[in-house]
């Protein structure tokens, strides 16, 4: 099973994501300017500050040449996971519903947060007990999840909210403590927390591994 991790100019957590993916599968780097997904089974759009987060986080990156392929890949049912800046890019690209707004604090926040995995089925959380709590860091300035009321209601009804900040842990003012959502077809997943920074006890926690492992299993199936 092969992951591809995109690097945009300004991506920062791309190498971290590559090595996290490498723990559960094969992982290759993909370059923003290419029109080639190198035959991967799952795409990770990583964290960082693509194009400096200028104008609006993710707004410029979503037009990168490789995104044409990613969008096509996703429409064909391919698995895509957008982490932090990658989540923002996926929202801007229309692959995921909603948008990410400036944190209520208006500041960058790094914090190890507790997350709840909801019972809604998804290939990204399949290996995790529903209701389980994960300890994973967040680090962002623009992480407040927003969707207009009707859209939000639809997301809840369709079980598209798969990850929430545990009570009292919401670091940014996200609506309904939403930390991660999937698209309607459930093959694209976006989350603000950084599971790639929770794959080794030495650097803090291994709770993020299960997300990569779930995805690897789904993509291999």
């Amino acid at each position, binding site marked *: 099973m092969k992951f591809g991790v995109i690097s945009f*100019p*300004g991506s*920062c957590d791309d190498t971290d994501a590559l*090595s996290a993916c490498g723990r559960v599968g094969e992982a290759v780097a993909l370059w923003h300017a290419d029109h080639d997904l190198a035959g991967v089974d799952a795409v990770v759009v990583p964290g960082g500050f693509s194009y400096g*987060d200028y104008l609006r986080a993710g707004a410029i990156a979503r037009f990168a040449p490789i995104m044409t392929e990613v969008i096509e890949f996703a429409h064909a049912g391919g698995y895509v996971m957008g982490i932090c800046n990658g989540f923002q890019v996926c929202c801007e690209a229309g692959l995921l519903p909603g948008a990410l707004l400036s944190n209520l604090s208006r*500041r960058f*926040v790094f914090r190890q947060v507790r997350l709840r995995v909801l019972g809604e089925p998804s290939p990204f959380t399949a290996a995790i007990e529903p209701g389980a709590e994960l300890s994973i860091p967040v680090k962002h300035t623009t992480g407040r999840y927003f969707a207009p009321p009707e859209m939000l209601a639809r997301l809840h009804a369709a079980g598209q909210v798969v990850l929430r900040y545990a009570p009292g842990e919401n670091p940014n003012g996200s609506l309904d403590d939403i930390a991660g959502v999937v698209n309607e077809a459930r093959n694209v997943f976006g989350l603000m927390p950084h599971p790639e*920074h929770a794959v080794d006890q*030495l650097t803090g926690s291994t709770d993020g591994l299960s997300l990569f492992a779930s995805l690897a299993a789904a993509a291999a199936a």
Partner: protein
Amino acid sequence: MSAVDSLAGVEQAVALGLTQDEYGLVVASLGGREPNDVELAMFSLLWSEHCSYKHSKILLRTLPSSGERLVLGPGENAGAVDVGGGLAVAFKVESHNHPSAVEPFQGAATGVGGILRDIFAVGARPIAVLDSLRFGEIDSERTRYLLEHAVAGIGHYGNSIGVPTVGGEVYFEGPYEQNCLINAMCVGLVETERLIRSAASGPGNLLVLFGASTGRDGIGGASVLASAELGEGDEAKRPSVQIGDPFAEKKLMECSLELLERALLVALQDLGAAGLTSAAAEMASKGSVGVDIDVARVPLREEGMEPFEIMVSESQERMLCVVEPDRLEAVLAVCEHWETAASVIGEVTASGLVRVLDGERVLGEMPVEALVDACPLYDLQPRAPQEPLYSAPRRVLDSSDDVDPGETLLALLRSPNIADRLPLFEQYDPVVQSRTVRRPGQADAAVLALPARGEARPGIAIAIDGNGRRVAADPYRGTVEAVLECASNLACVGAEPLGLTNCLNFGNPEKPHVAWQLCESVRGLADACRAIGVAVVGGNVSLYNEGADGPIYPTPVIGLVGELPDVALAGRIGFRAEGDRIALVGPFAPEIAGSELARLGGRELPSSLADVDIARVLAAQRAVRDAVRSGSLASAHDIAEGGLATALAECCLAGGLGAEVAFDDTVKPLRALFGEGSGGFVVSGGEGALRALGGAGVAVRIVGLVSGTRLTIVAGEARIELALERLREAHGALRALFD
């Protein structure tokens, strides 16, 4: 007629910061010819304090600059030490004080940008940033403004470029009110054989400028500004502020590292203060060659820039490299890949001259030596002050003996110099690059993992420190203490010092008392480095840090890098397990004079600090380090600001566990609880492990045990009993600043 007679020339030179005598030397070094505008601008910047180190160079030569593990010493953009496995760690700390006083967000951001470039200029990938900040009293509106924006600026740059900010320190003291300090340190990792120097060589080789285009940023900025005091009329000196672009720097960094990875460069140099002028002259000087620069080939951001502006512009995010002509195409291709503009702007010559051209026209022609080496160096005229230099801090607390010691402890925990820094450092990303084993708040030093070597998981530890108030009280001992404190911080995570960097932030060195502070401090620094067995690999000097009320506290900021064999065993501050014993280790001889408590109580600075028994402090550090490395301790924390009681409270809070501690024989409880001095550690673990620390002359005293959810300390007559919740609330005092 001697050109020096030209009044206009002298006047202009003086306006640009040169003295009349220096101007005479410039003329002499040009063979009696007066410099034209372009040349004068270049001389005035290179001969400024900031670039020439004319008041500090002689002193800096007294610092130990060789060591077993040193692989790149002072003189390069950053120094480096060997960390085994064919790897070296390059590091340096630098100030950006004056630009930050003008515009704190951009000043701090570009300060980080500048120090990052120094690190990748030697070929190392930046793997960590640390910051060292000094502001006035916390209740000043200006302090809050500076704090908020400086912290945001540091985060903005470091976070966006993907380099973790893993540590730092901040103090709030009156003497910094009008002259804040913003120092940033960067640490980089490089294969030793890939370290690159900045010496230009090979006449006929090309000079390639890459990165951002050149605008009027900081014309007469850093260099001139940093050589003059800020005060009233501050406004007029404001230069065009430099704006940091971390996105451009990220691409520049990846581009530079790939160029080096592919061995495409002869030499590499960042553009910092004095821009192209300094970069080109330094590269030529180090390689004993000449350079021609054609200003017409420099890509500009603004129209109508004059040649001198192009030569001294401090536009950020630019690098200069020397390239063999047949590698040019490959170099440009790498730059293109990273969306980084690159232009050939000149070439290396055998002339020994820096020549500035505009196409065919020669605009300036100066011997490299004149620019770089002919600037006079000044001996300082130190004189120890007879009167106290600093007024007593404002009293905010009754620190007399009859105050409840519990209340005193809470006041200390609440003090901005001790309170939890979380509200600041949570604005920084400490984990990107996946090396960070100990984040801020977890341990006394940051710990980063190096690539595994077989089963071994070696790492490095980094600490940054410099308590200006104690240096003000006693420049020699205060500086020794600062170095020892960094070494103690490393010991607590199990690391041994490898190399040291420093930034000397002082007032006007032409004043005898400031000169005395500087001399004494550097003497302390040199002695302490020899004692802990490390070289000074490089650093920075920032002088003329004064406001209307006088100089800042003399503030040598010390950055220390060490190694540890196994990061999995890196120490932590926090108590770990109920029932563990707590011991006080080391030759801890606390004094109230010069302490944080004395500051809160509004007491004058003492006229000296107690002598430190360095050998015994080192023995204690060794004992703690070895025990941490063996995994026998549950926690280790050095005693610093706020003394023993504060250290115990910090261990409780970091571990979420209470403690019961007693010192029955204490006669002077206030001093025992809150006094400060070097060499004390609070450690916890099993009784056997703690007793085992007591070898080779190291004092170990078991004083209590980890237990419950309250901190209880009995010291002679005095008794503290506080719930963790109350400690936590007090310790969280800085949170209110960021709501």
